[in-house]
């Protein structure tokens, strides 16, 4: 290896090369991640379950195959963490909720089935907001995750555990899910790369459902190149997910180096003056734009006039779909059942009252209301119309720009407890990420600097439907130009 940092702090592509040269074994890489978990997870709490035994067996299998001279894909031997929303056969899966306790899935989700067939090594299941509902990870029934950059602050959410694990080398890569920003926002707050590809690009078979027309599988890594490798391993059609796109997948690493000379980068100027956007976020974002200009890109102003309504539309569509999806947790087929009920309705009602946390209850009520007789047209119907307007806005904007840039989140990591009693303030954390979920377009967050508090800022790039190559190419060029190399003090002291 190029230096003597623990293996799990290295980029995945370097580890893959070292594995093939025989400089390191998959077992040694996994052990370095497990050691890091031992050292820091008592304070970070990124993991709900560490799967050391499964991981060791998988790593040993990769080592055997490498010794036998097998040609393995780029993900082989790389330690990967999964948000506890992904079903893993034989491994307890909670979705951050008490209502599923105890649930041991009888099957693997497609993304993990693909990764494990390719030789990836599971480190464990990461903490998340209950059923992915939240922007701070404080809605987990198992307690909050702490941001590795500042332990008193949130890691973002809902995939906060996955973002924190990658940020401090408790895994090299991780998977999360993004319904309103749940991959990009925690990636931004934890200083790592988070990608939400096009809706339907990665199968959701086995991903516990939150809001089906918005749920996306997304990736965490510490570089854009690694993100492209991970995406290539899991993207593509899956007959088990009817929303999965039939378009052929590709090797997303191809074309990554093509640069951005002549590229048109759209900027929504209204967003930069939006109330609540911190100066530190604005400054780091502007520095990112200047870097793109130095590389030959042109900055063009674009408008997304209906983005102002996107947040409202999202907070009707997502709860409405959640209220329907979460109807399955009724104490009959899996998970919790409150005993001593006389009738089945009483059993359902008491089980759900006891098993769900505050935010999930709030959204079930909101969604049930938005779908109930007399209110459907006024709320859910209207929200779906806003969605159409947001999509049209993007279509218009992409006539003038090849990608659209924005801060990922209006603030850097906020303190644990700061927003828990003000749901609307919490929802505003996702104001810049929600539009891409409503439109289904690919979007990435990469770190672009630190604010005055020393907390990372995320730079978001959005592209046209299925135009992951342009998004990744732009992000890769910007990443190289910014050369952001800071790591949380928790893991960088002494190195």
């Amino acid at each position: 290896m190029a230096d003597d940092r623990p293996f799990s702090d290295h980029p995945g592509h370097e580890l893959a090369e070292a594995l093939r040269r025989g400089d390191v074994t998959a077992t040694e890489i996994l052990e370095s991640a497990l050691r890091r978990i031992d050292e820091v997870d008592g304070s970070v709490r990124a993991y709900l379950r560490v799967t050391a035994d499964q991981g060791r067996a998988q790593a040993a299998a990769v080592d055997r195959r490498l010794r036998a001279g097998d040609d393995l894909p780029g993900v082989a031997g790389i330690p990967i963490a999964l948000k506890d929303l992904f079903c893993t056969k034989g491994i307890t899966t909670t979705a951050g909720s008490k209502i599923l306790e105890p649930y041991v899935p009888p099957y693997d989700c497609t993304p993990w089935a693909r990764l494990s067939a390719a030789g990836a090594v599971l480190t464990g299941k990461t903490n998340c907001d209950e059923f992915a509902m939240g922007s701070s990870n404080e809605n987990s029934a198992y307690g909050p995750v702490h941001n590795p950059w500042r332990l008193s602050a949130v890691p973002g959410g809902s995939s906060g555990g996955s973002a924190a694990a990658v940020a401090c080398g408790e895994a090299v890569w991780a998977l999360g899910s993004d319904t309103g920003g749940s991959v990009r926002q925690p990636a931004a707050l934890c200083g790592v790369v988070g990608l939400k590809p096009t809706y339907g690009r990665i199968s959701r078979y086995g991903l516990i459902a939150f809001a089906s027309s918005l749920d996306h599988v997304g990736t965490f890594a510490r570089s854009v190149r690694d993100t492209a490798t991970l995406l290539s391993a899991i993207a593509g059609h899956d007959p088990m997910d009817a929303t999965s796109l039939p378009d052929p997948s590709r090797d997303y690493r191809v074309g990554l180096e093509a640069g951005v000379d002549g590229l048109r980068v759209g900027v929504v100027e209204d967003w930069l003056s939006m109330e609540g956007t911190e100066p530190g976020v604005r400054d780091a974002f502007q520095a990112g734009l200047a870097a793109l200009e130095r590389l030959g890109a042109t900055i063009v102003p674009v408008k997304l006039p209906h983005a102002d309504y996107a947040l409202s539309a999202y907070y009707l569509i997502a709860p409405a779909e959640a209220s329907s999806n979460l109807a399955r947790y009724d104490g009959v087929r899996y998970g919790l059942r409150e005993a001593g009920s006389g009738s089945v309705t009483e059993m359902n009602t008491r089980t759900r009252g006891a098993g769900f946390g505050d935010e999930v209850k709030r959204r079930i009520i909101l969604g049930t209301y938005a779908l109930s007789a007399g209110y459907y047209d006024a709320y859910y119907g209207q929200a779906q119309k806003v969605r159409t307007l947001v999509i049209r806005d993007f279509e218009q904007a992409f006539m003038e720009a090849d990608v659209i840039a924005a801060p990922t989140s209006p603030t850097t990591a906020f303190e644990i407890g700061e927003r828990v009693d003000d749901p609307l303030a919490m929802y505003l954390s996702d104001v810049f990420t929600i539009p891409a979920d409503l439109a289904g377009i690919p979007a990435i967050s990469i770190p672009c600097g630190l604010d005055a508090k020393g907390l990372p800022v995320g730079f978001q790039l959005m592209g046209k439907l299925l135009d992951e190559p342009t998004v990744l190419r732009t992000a890769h060029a910007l990443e190289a130009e910014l050369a952001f190399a800071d790591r949380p003090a928790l893991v960088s002291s002494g190195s």
Partner: protein
Amino acid sequence: MAVDIDLEHVARLARLALTEEEKARFGPQLEVILEHARTVGEVAATSHPVPRANVYRPDEPRPCLTQEEALANAPDPFEGRFRVPRIVEEE
């Protein structure tokens, strides 16, 4: 215009037991959220960001969960079935 939400009714529709304390707390919070949500004019609705219709896969028998696997997580399995409290009221 203030939004009026009948929490008792909605909680009953959602089969969700709420404590008095939860009702008192959620009521005002939900009103704020719903106020924020009341906007927009007349356009077509979007239900799916990438339009797709009639997605089929071949209708072929494939391996699936065994009865034992399907029941493994059930709170109260009974003779190969999911047992629940009485559904039909007694006469």
